[in-house]
């Protein structure tokens, strides 16, 4: 489903963050990405929703080369991809409910009952149902991160991308969130997660790709540990 072919990325300051990376993630697969700080994990993930574009090589989703997606069509593409960021990127002037409802609003769902049902289902999954009327500044770091996760899944995307989704969560909660991602994966969502927590991702028994200084070092299917 997601195909990287000889992708390199040189940033405007001349730094080469990805070097000749090729990989394929199948439909409804769940995979992890790991590597040292600055290895290029976030750079790789950002290419899928077209936040960054490769300087060489190509990325295709569903056989569709992203290089050919016109500016006007980018929003539609992004609506099909749920993204969880390293920092949660919530809007501070809206309640938790409104933050999670945003993707629905953006894709044109205004029916209040239906929207409310979906938002509450998503919040329930991350254990924050009772906080729907709070503003993000009232939440702890881990709670904010979980709201970000709820927002990413509320519109039932086809692809879920998560950048360090458990960086602010305690071990027990981290495992719960990973199980949640696995549930999504089981109903057919393609899931790609970047994480440093080798213990956590090792226990998941899924494919693990290791980046180092922009190169894909190892690509182990379903083995625990590094």
């Amino acid at each position, binding site marked *: 489903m997601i195909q990287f072919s000889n992708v390199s990325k040189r940033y405007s300051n001349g730094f080469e963050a990805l070097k000749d990376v090729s990989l394929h993630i199948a439909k409804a697969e769940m995979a992890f990405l790991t590597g040292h700080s600055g290895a290029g994990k976030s750079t790789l993930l950002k290419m899928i*929703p077209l*936040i960054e574009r490769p300087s060489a090589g190509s990325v295709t989703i569903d056989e569709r080369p992203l290089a050919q997606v016109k500016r006007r069509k980018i*929003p*539609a593409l*992004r609506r099909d991809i749920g993204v969880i960021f390293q920092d949660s990127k919530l809007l501070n002037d809206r309640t938790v409910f409104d933050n999670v409802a945003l*993707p629905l609003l*953006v894709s*044109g*769902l205004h029916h209040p009952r239906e929207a409310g049902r979906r938002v509450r289902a998503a919040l329930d999954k991350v254990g924050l149902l009772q906080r729907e009327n709070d503003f993000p500044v009232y939440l702890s770091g881990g709670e904010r991160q979980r709201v970000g996760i709820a927002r990413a899944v509320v519109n039932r995307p*086809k692809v879920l991308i998560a950048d360090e989704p458990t960086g602010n969560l305690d071990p027990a909660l981290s495992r719960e969130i990973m199980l949640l991602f696995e549930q999504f994966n089981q109903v057919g969502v393609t899931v790609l997660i970047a994480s440093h927590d080798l213990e956590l991702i090792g226990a998941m028994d899924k494919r693990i790709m290791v980046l180092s200084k922009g190169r894909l070092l190892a690509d182990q299917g379903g083995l625990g540990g590094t």
Partner: protein
Amino acid sequence: MALKQVQPPSRPAAQRSRTGLKQRLRNYFALHFHVLTTTLAQLGRSLSGNLMTTMVIGIALALPATLHVFLNKVDNLGASWQESAQVSLFLKVKLPAQALGGLTTELNSWPEIGSLEYISPEQALEEFKQTSGLGDALAFLDQNPLPGVMLVSPALAFQTPAAVETLRQRLSQLPEVDLAQLDLEWLQRLHGLIRLAERAVLLLGGLLALAVLFVIGNTIRLAIQSRHDEIEVIKLIGGSDAFVRRPFLYNGMWFGLFGGLLAWLLVNVLLVNLDQPVRQLAELYGSDFSLGLVDTKTTLLLLVLGPLFGLLGAWLATGRHLRAIEPS
């Protein structure tokens, strides 16, 4: 996933199960109404700050509007200004009454001529005695040396200095007329004053219209800057440019509308404040002219142009700045 696989991939998930036209239209209007009201609510929430913006827009709109109202009123005065364009015909001395009647009939048929007024030699002498301050001195005269005078006011369409001068020359050719005199200077002064006022209003109006555009554009630009993160997030989630722009456009419109309302208020305050000196001045000219309040036309103009300018300013500001914000 069974549910989803039958759907085309590029349509947002939320719309997949509802594609009826009626539902879409309803969605569309619901969205606009939602943005309309939420932007208004936002405006209300940070009232004190937005009041400042609104005040500036109001002031900028109020000044040319006041001038417009003022000149409008003065234009309506037309009639009392007309006098200044009079041509005085000094008739031949001892003109027979029937020649005078013939002249009156003929002049009344000329399209250039608006109205006539005849002053007989006796009236002229009387008036001359009183106004010249030579009352006693003129008692020396054993006969009335003055001719009859016909005051000719040109029709409205013929009041430019050139047209009046042409009229004067035609009139001076008439056999009954000894001399056709015109206070052309006064007419030219009047036209000079009007030209000056028009030029000033044009410059002022232009500058202030620019100022309104700038104020609104600037406010929206800074609003965009201060909501940079929000815009980034919405774009990341898949919000289209139109979706992102919409609240800012409504915002500009609200600013313009409230600015227009405030301007209306200010114009009235200005008119009331200027009314007394204007009235005093007018009295000296023997006129009961007074400014009154804003007319309906100007009111409508303010309430239409305000939001329009707001929209335009917002459009200009969003065009450049929204595009520049991209998620990173």
